[in-house]
């Protein structure tokens, strides 16, 4: 008897239902040759029609990166073969029908619109996504930004960073690299040299952004890396909620994603940054998948300002990211809410840094790690209280949940306290899904898969409730998909 047939992707042999975002968007693209040198950086800068100061900044970053000897940092608890940085395409852009870069929503290849529809990100404003403004980034460029007009009326700038470099150079020059300098780390240096697009947001004083702003990142080209750069500035007394979603096609080879995100909150301003990271995680044997090496940092520059990171990390073969907050303004608040789930051979080394400098600064860290299959999950966090931070407070809660017996969870909290008035609390737990809990749910008629989902969802509740409404449904679906194959 022939074996039962399922829908199998021909390329990778993995079941498509496990990663339904894994299709390739068939659009013609403008692709740079592989490899990295000063000429490639000049090419990227030229394609973007950048001013000279930007090119010079990139070249300084590139020279610094080159001086690091092409050897990636090794301190994280992740393992991968050395990355050949000359085997990566650093620029790939979809072309519009006339072979030029799309200028307006109407110029976008209909194929591309259909693809984003399929991903649940409609680019036409009339199909608006529950009032969310979207910037869609495919490979190296932003292909569409919605609701720009309405936001402009309020003085809010929401545009591709390449556009901001041309139209708002004073803001970009002032803040780009001010939170994450290109000397910060290996991948930040690389990103600074080659970043091709990303999102720029500026909210003027006293303005509360009336809708969530969203960037949807998509890697499409097979050999391309994605190096986006996001810069968000919330001026005095303003508020903005920003969402970020990411997917990539199923590819046999690993793909590199090295982004830098910088947030700046001035006096009394608040930035809420939410991520749903669903890059292709690789197949069941750990073949393929995205290397997600990301530097995200915000600074509470002003008094009473607040930056809140919420992340749900279910994708990528390897995740390496530590969304952090520098609490410089007095009474400022930093928050980090995280769910990181690894299954099969995924690896995650993620956490946060809370650097307290101002007086009465407060930070909250809630990290939930779920490990299944052969997954390796590490929480790595730093809470640093500087001598100037009188009355600083931190609360950290770090929970790990294990599913099965071949996975692992690691917790590496660092504490550096240089002010005796600081108050710090740290709670950590590690647990397995108990048979008692599963049996209780199953004895009510609930299937084992659903029972497990409910327990994991319950475990993550404290983080999920921080997510904006638009993400809540998607997160439930993502969690279900990510847990597939962990029962039995």
């Amino acid at each position, binding site marked *: 008897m022939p074996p039962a047939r399922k829908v199998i992707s021909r390329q990778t042999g993995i079941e498509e239902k496990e990663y339904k975002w894994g299709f390739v968007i068939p659009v013609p693209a403008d692709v740079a040759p592989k490899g990295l040198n000063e000429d490639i950086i000049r090419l990227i800068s030229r394609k973007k029609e950048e001013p000279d100061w930007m090119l010079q900044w990139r070249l300084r970053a590139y020279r610094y990166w080159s001086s690091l000897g092409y050897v990636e940092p090794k301190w994280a608890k992740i393992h991968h073969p050395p990355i050949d940085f000359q085997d990566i395409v650093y620029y790939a852009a979809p072309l519009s029908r006339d072979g030029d870069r799309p200028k307006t929503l109407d110029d976008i290849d209909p194929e591309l619109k259909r693809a984003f529809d399929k991903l649940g990100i409609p680019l036409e404003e009339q199909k608006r996504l529950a009032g969310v403004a979207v910037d869609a980034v495919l490979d190296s460029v932003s292909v569409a930004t919605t609701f720009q007009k309405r936001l402009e009326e309020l003085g809010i700038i929401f545009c591709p960073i390449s556009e901001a470099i041309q139209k708002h150079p004073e803001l970009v020059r002032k803040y780009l690299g001010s939170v994450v300098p290109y000397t910060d780390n290996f991948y930040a240096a690389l990103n600074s040299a080659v970043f091709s697009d990303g999102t720029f947001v500026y909210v003027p004083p006293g303005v509360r952004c009336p809708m969530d702003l969203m960037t949807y990142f998509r890697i499409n080209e097979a050999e391309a890396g994605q190096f986006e750069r996001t810069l968000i500035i919330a001026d005095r007394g303003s508020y903005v909620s920003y969402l970020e979603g990411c997917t990539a096609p199923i590819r046999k080879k690993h793909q590199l994603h090295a982004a830098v995100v910088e947030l700046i909150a001035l006096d009394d301003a608040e930035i809420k940054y939410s991520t749903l990271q669903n890059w292709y995680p690789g197949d069941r044997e750990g073949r393929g998948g995205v290397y997600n090496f990301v530097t995200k940092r915000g600074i509470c520059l002003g008094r009473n300002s607040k930056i809140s990171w919420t992340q749900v990390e279910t994708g990528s073969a390897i995740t390496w990211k530590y969304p952090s907050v520098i609490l410089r303004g007095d009474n400022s608040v930093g928050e980090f809410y995280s769910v990181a789930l690894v299954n099969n051979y995924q690896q995650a080394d993620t956490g946060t840094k809370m650097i307290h400098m101002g007086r009465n600064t407060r930070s909250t860290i809630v990290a939930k790690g779920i490990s299944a299959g052969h997954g390796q999950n590490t929480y790595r966090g730093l809470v640093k209280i500087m001598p100037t931070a009188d009355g600083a407070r931190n609360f950290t809660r770090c929970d790990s949940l294990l599913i099965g017996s071949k996975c692992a969870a690691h917790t590496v909290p660092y504490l550096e306290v240089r002010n005796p008035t600081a108050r710090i609390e740290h709670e950590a737990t590690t647990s397995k899904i*108990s*048979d*008692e*809990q599963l*049996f*209780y*749910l*199953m*004895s*009510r*008629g*609930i*299937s*084992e898969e*659903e*029972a497990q989902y*409910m*327990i994991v*969802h*319950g*475990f*993550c*509740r*404290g983080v999920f409730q921080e997510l904006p409404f638009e993400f809540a449904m998607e997160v439930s679906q993502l969690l279900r998909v990510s847990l597939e194959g962990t029962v039995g």
Partner: protein
Amino acid sequence: MSGDGKEPVLVLRGLRAGVGGVEILKGVDLTLHLGEVHAIMGPNGSGKSTLVNVLAGKPDYEVYAGEVYYRGRDLLSLPPDERAREGVFLAFQYPVELPGVRLREFLRAALDAVREHRGLEKLSVRDFNRLVQEKLREMGMDAEFLKRNVNEGFSGGEKKRHEIMQLLLLDPTLALLDETDSGLDIDALKLVAQGINRFRGPEKAVLLVTHYQRILNYVQPDFVHVLIDGRIVASGGRELAQELEAKGYEWLRQAAEAGRRE
């Protein structure tokens, strides 16, 4: 045993079962018909809880020999969730806490699962709310419970009432009640007994495991069985429970041991 002409809902033949290779049930025969309430009494460690947990399909328990038929089907071959959907319900002695799982979501998922299995439509949010609040009220529980995590921070009595509330909501055929009366004050005991009485009927069967005969003053059993050392050593009507109350278990244990020596 009586019940002629009625459908046997549960038949146990020579059931031997235990945990980790240690035999606890040493050959149990029992038949329940629709419409009947059976009480299983016995001293601590006699195997009462093992019996209902084996019937509900708790994974740690092992079956070494014997057969169990539920409505003519081999019950032991079904996974626990399927047993539940087929109409077997276990009210736990120690209900486990489910952190982060809201009671409303839990009840919704359970009700959806059993209704789907019975070929019934999903209830609308409104009908579900109405139904679940009615059942909560019947068990003297506040609608605020729906926002709480399942069993988390519930008092002992609240946990037991919650179990019977689920029994009424899910409306199974066979109720297995594992010491549902233990640790209850008299008011809670009456509420729980009322719930069980509301459940019982010509299309239902109840297997009630208890240590004390106290609850049997409120839930009148049709049959009483005494389980000692993994065997049913005596069966009778309600008067057997009263005799036990007066004389304890020791005389039955001695009789059983004498019987085995012969």
